[in-house]
């Protein structure tokens, strides 16, 4: 069971979203490619002469040529209908001397709901923020629906500026002799921004725009980013507010909303942008206990609609009830990723047991 230490290893989506055979094939691909983090816990896969980090999936790398041409990679090249919505490999993040993420691998399948739990300071939120580029990744690869927003590539000076573009195949060739010589590919801000639009994020502190009404908050992205006309934006905005049960609050400023209402507006604001994947960073942690339920209810609705979600949460019951997979993080690493049944009742790692005893 030691290979279970790496997320994306064994467990496909419990809901079986991508068809009957999909989870299996997805898992196999994920585990084989995923393990080679130099500092990561070395499972059986890691010992089999791991390719250099970032070049783990040769098919993927070969197809990932020019950033603009990358759309083909996710759908066209990887045939599996359950190709990961998010694929993170060897994720490292340091703030100065403090290493917060020490080589995290994570795959999220379409329609899958992943709950991330762990003690505070374990890097859960940082990992989530790295996935949507709110934090610049120190090292590692993050792909959103096959399109990289960060990529670790092999090669030192000799690849130089030419590494981007046609160098994809060469990366693999160079990787074997010098597996440690890697660097981060430069991906332009605008490209990253465009690729991250597949993702939505909901914050612990809502971060509503205080100078705009509930509706104003929801339509802001529609007007400015999606460039809808005012009337289209309002129509969709009202629909979104209705979806979270706040149609009657459309002209109210955030200062006059309760915490639960604020968070629901924040969710509506994000949903209006029609993301494929929603990231939730402790969405109920700043709420009074009696307001938690209304926010969780909205998230449950999303689950019913097969929204792909990654939720950092301290609500153990929520994680257990709703998620397809629970990821336990500690000290910047994923300790175990398993189905909720497994992780909550019979975790492999004693640290998880100790943590759960404190939480439950």
């Amino acid at each position, binding site marked *: 069971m030691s290979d279970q230490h790496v997320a994306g290893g064994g467990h496909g989506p419990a809901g079986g979203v991508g068809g009957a055979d999909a989870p299996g094939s997805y898992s196999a691909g994920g585990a084989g490619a995923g393990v080679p983090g130099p500092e990561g816990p070395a499972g059986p896969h890691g010992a089999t002469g791991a390719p250099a980090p970032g070049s783990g999936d040769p098919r993927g790398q070969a197809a990932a040529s020019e950033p603009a041409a990358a759309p083909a990679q996710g759908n066209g090249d990887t045939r599996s209908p359950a190709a990961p919505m998010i694929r993170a490999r060897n994720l490292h993040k340091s703030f100065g001397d403090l290493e917060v993420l020490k080589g995290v691998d994570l795959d999220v399948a379409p329609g899958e709901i992943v709950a991330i739990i762990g003690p505070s300071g374990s890097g859960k939120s940082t990992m989530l923020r790295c996935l949507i580029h709110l934090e610049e990744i120190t090292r590692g690869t993050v792909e959103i629906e096959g399109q990289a927003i960060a990529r670790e590539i092999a090669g030192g000076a000799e690849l130089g500026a030419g590494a981007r573009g046609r160098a994809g195949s060469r990366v693999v060739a160079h990787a074997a002799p010098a597996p440690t010589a890697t660097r981060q590919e430069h991906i332009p801000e605008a490209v990253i921004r465009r690729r991250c639009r597949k993702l939505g994020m909901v*914050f612990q502190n809502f*971060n509503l725009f205080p100078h705009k009404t509930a509706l104003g908050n929801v339509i802001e*992205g529609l007007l400015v980013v999606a460039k809808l006309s005012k009337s289209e934006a309002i129509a969709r905005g009202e629909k979104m507010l209705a979806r979270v049960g706040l149609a009657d609050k459309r002209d109210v400023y955030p200062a006059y909303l309760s915490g639960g209402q604020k968070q629901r507006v924040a969710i509506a604001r994000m949903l209006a942008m029609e993301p494929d994947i929603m990231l939730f960073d402790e969405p109920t942690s700043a709420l009074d206990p009696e307001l938690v339920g209304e926010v969780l209810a909205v998230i449950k609705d999303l689950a019913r609609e097969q929204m792909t979600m990654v939720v950092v949460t301290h609500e153990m019951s929520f994680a257990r009830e709703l998620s397809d997979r629970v990821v336990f993080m500690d000290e910047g690493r994923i300790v175990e990723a398993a189905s909720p049944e497994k992780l909550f009742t019979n975790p492999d790692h004693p640290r998880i047991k100790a943590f759960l005893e404190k939480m439950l």
Partner: protein
Amino acid sequence: MEYLIDTTTYILQGAGVTVRLFVLTLVFSLPLGFLGAVGKVSRRKSLSVTLGLYTSVVRGTPLLLQLFFVYYGLPLLIPVLRFDRFTAAVVTFIINYAAYFVEIFRGGIQSIERGQYEAAKVLGMNYRQTMVRIVLPQTLKRVLPPVSNEAITLVKDTALVVVLGIGEILRNSKEVVSRDFTITPFVIAGVIYLTLNYGLVWVFGRLERRYQVYE
């Protein structure tokens, strides 16, 4: 009584100059200050360093000295920059007040929480959109009180241009004082300044209340 009216009328003629100087200064220095603040928080190091130098020099030296420098000093250094008195005063005031506004707006921009930038970012906004749509509107509300302070100070600072012999409120009243040996004109001047500032406070109060709707 007639004397009082005559004197007041004469001083009020000076008030016209004062108000003109005041309005011109605000109209130019506010937007300049705003742009300067955006430049100062930008990631371009050269820009923020240059602007930092500008604000520390201008805020670190007396306005009176700057007036003398622009009117008497500049033409010696660069002959093209020979201004008439009023223009020299306006130019000096704009340069001076813009420096203060740069720092006020910079403080306002930096007081906006990081979460606002992050929320804008996850919605897909770029830096410019984030500034224009999210950060600057909130900044405006926050800087109203210090800007109102500056505006009040500006009304009073206009009296400094008396040293260039511009006929504004203070100079006109001083003329009458030395002609008639009475301090009444000074009292009248004081009342006019007070009235101007009272109007300003009222305007800014209205503005602040209008922005209060969302908090």
